[in-house]
């Protein structure tokens, strides 16, 4: 993906031309010089040469439509439970099954979740929003329509800011923004299991009626990398708010991408919609593939049709999904069973209304938790760590949330802060121990922060020993390895056991240094001749003799002093 990253670094647009040129040099190698996936598509679809039109640049345009399942106990319009895995059709009420005589009753918690999300994304909250019916026929939509908010949604005109690494090493980050067109409340459909063998579809309505927030983004992005970064940040925000657990693998966050390309100065090209994207990694792949596919197609004189395509994760490419039956006509109509949804703020609060029936936007705004961007800024400001470090701290937490069902646990940032509180070591140094050492142990053993055998207290204790120069950093790593075994020993006990204390006796150290110097005539001569690097070898030998218990800085000083005599 180096080519793609290079493109990001230089800004999108013109570099796509260079990407194609690169392909032209090695015909048939596919859109990504190192892309294994694209080669499989090549084999299927024939040669993907760069085309003849050559050097006119293409501007890719990417817009996302995201459905986030609201984290609530019961469904949007009924009192049946929301739960991921349950026996089929056990979490279904009569309304969810669309039995005659049932009516929708709006869930307060879902409205609050949508308002929170709208506020967090800088949206304007519509104090009056309306519900509509969107009609289409499908087995998992028992009513034949979905209740949604097409005319006047609950929130409009917001923005999402996200960070992007310029290079692979994460040492340079840029902030980008994508505009949010609107956020609307709508129902989820049930699940269909296609049994092609018996030519039938099995329908489970457990998911039918669960509350969704549909977030429509403006087409402000230009590549898979940006789309992935934006969705990651959105995921983090939703999880921080608690409005959605946003775990893509469990279908709580579904992303559809709209992709088109055009020449600069010309109107937007025809867009295709890409569905069936099951992870953030696949999102980036799908978007980049589709951009490249469209460029190739147009470059070869073909046209792009306004179709829906599915992403095939095994082959790494998009395939047409539906028949070209033209645009669906959803026959939107106002939902006759629901009056307008009215929200209030501090000024418009009605005097004589039941508290439970009133949703106060200002009240919700005051209680919003710190958003990830604010958390990161605070960490940087308070502890002087680098922005990319604060990014890693929170991203690790996000990965944890995705893999475990219990999100919003006390995580790595809290662990870090606890260690800082209990140690004299500077936060800038502590962060290294957290991100390099602790994190690699956690990853190696697939543990969450809560499950770590090394508590923040133990780590702080260890770092104090290091800070007081009672042990060397090499020794500290050894101790950490021992502590990780979780045998209940304190750092000090481990140090004593393994005899890792730094030699405090200066005289003894000097004697050892002298002995090493005396034993390495050739090296001494080399150093005196000007080759300073050889000094490291001598330091190493001293370390060996002291069994790692010497302070390398001090050793270097002593050796240099002796050699200059």
């Amino acid at each position: 993906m180096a080519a793609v990253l290079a493109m990001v670094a230089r800004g999108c647009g013109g570099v796509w031309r260079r990407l194609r040129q690169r392909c032209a040099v090695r015909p048939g190698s596919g859109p990504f010089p190192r892309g294994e996936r694209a080669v499989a598509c090549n084999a299927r679809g024939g040669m993907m040469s760069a085309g003849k039109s050559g050097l006119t640049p293409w501007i890719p345009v990417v817009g996302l439509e995201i459905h986030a399942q609201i984290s609530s106990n019961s469904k949007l319009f009924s009192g049946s439970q929301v739960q991921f895995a349950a026996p089929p059709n056990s979490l279904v009420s009569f309304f969810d099954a669309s039995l005659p005589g049932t009516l929708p009753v709006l869930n307060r918690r879902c409205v609050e979740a949508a308002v929170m999300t709208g506020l967090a994304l800088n949206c304007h909250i519509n104090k009056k929003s309306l519900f509509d019916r969107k009609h289409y026929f499908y087995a998992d939509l028992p009513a034949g329509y979905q209740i949604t908010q097409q005319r006047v949604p609950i929130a409009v005109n917001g923005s999402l800011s996200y960070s992007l690494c310029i290079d692979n090493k994460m040492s340079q980050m840029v902030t980008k923004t994508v505009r949010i067109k609107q956020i609307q409340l709508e129902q989820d459909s049930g699940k269909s299991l296609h049994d092609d063998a018996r030519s039938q579809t099995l329908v489970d309505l457990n998911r039918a009626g669960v509350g969704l927030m549909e977030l429509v983004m403006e087409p402000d992005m230009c590549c898979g990398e940006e789309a992935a970064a934006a969705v990651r940040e959105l995921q983090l925000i939703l999880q921080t708010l608690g409005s959605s657990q946003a775990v893509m693998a469990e279908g709580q966050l579904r992303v559809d991408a709209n992709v088109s390309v055009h020449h600069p100065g010309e109107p937007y090209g025809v867009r295709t919609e890409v569905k069936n994207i099951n992870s953030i990694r696949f999102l980036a792949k799908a978007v980049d593939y589709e951009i490249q596919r469209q460029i190739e197609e147009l470059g070869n004189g073909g046209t792009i049709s306004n179709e829906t395509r599915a992403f095939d994760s095994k082959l790494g490419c998009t395939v047409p999904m539906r028949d070209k039956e033209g645009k669906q006509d959803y026959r939107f109509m106002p939902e006759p069973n629901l009056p307008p949804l009215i929200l209030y703020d501090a000024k418009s609060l009605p005097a004589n209304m039941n508290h439970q029936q009133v949703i106060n936007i200002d009240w919700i705004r005051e209680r919003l938790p710190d958003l990830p961007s604010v958390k990161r800024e605070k960490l940087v400001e308070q502890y002087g760590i680098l922005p990319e470090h604060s990014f890693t701290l929170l991203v690790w937490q996000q990965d944890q949330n995705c893999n475990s069902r219990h999100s919003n646990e006390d995580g790595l940032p809290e662990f870090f802060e606890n260690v800082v509180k209990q140690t004299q070591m500077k936060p800038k140094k502590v962060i290294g121990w957290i991100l390099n050492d602790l994190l690699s142990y956690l990853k190696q053993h697939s543990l969450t922060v809560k499950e770590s055998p090394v508590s923040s207290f133990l780590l702080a204790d260890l770092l104090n020993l290091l800070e007081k120069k009672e042990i060397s950093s090499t020794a500290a790593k050894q101790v950490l390895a021992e502590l990780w075994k979780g045998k209940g020993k304190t750092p000090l006990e481990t140090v004593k056991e393994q005899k890792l204390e730094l030699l405090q006796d200066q005289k003894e150290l000097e004697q050892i240094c002298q002995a090493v110097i005396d034993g390495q005539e050739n090296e001494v001569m080399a150093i005196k001749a000007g080759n300073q690097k050889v000094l490291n070898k001598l330091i190493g030998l001293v370390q060996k003799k002291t069994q790692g218990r010497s302070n390398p800085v001090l050793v270097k000083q002593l050796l240099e002093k002796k050699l200059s005599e």
Partner: protein
Amino acid sequence: MRVLSLGRWLRAGRVPPREPASRPSGHRHSGHRPQGPPQQKVSVEVLEHLEHLALVDFRDSEGVERLQKAIQFADQLHEVNTDGVEPMDSVLEDRCLYLREDDVTEGNCTKELLENARETVEEYFVAPPGNIPLVKLEGQKTFLQGSK
């Protein structure tokens, strides 16, 4: 209102637009007006489009005639001058939308729900495979997956 726009477009023999057509203010009819000249027949394309969308079958000329009469009947609404009046979309517009607490109060009635189904397989409802197109399309069948 969607019925009004549909009537107007059908009379003109064109496919109805997807959004309600904006009303040209000049065409507002004030006061009464006669039923109008005999209508053109509803075009075949429009009929097929309607059948496809609503999964109805007009079947024979009597059905089409009935449709024509229904449109005519609804067209009487044109007699009312609605200049500058905000369309009403719900008679409930002055009511308060009731907000329910987020408690689990329903569900767990699998057996009852499945009793209504003609065919079930291990507590799943059974439906025909995917969406069956009304008119056989040339070439590939509609390809549908679990997610839409």
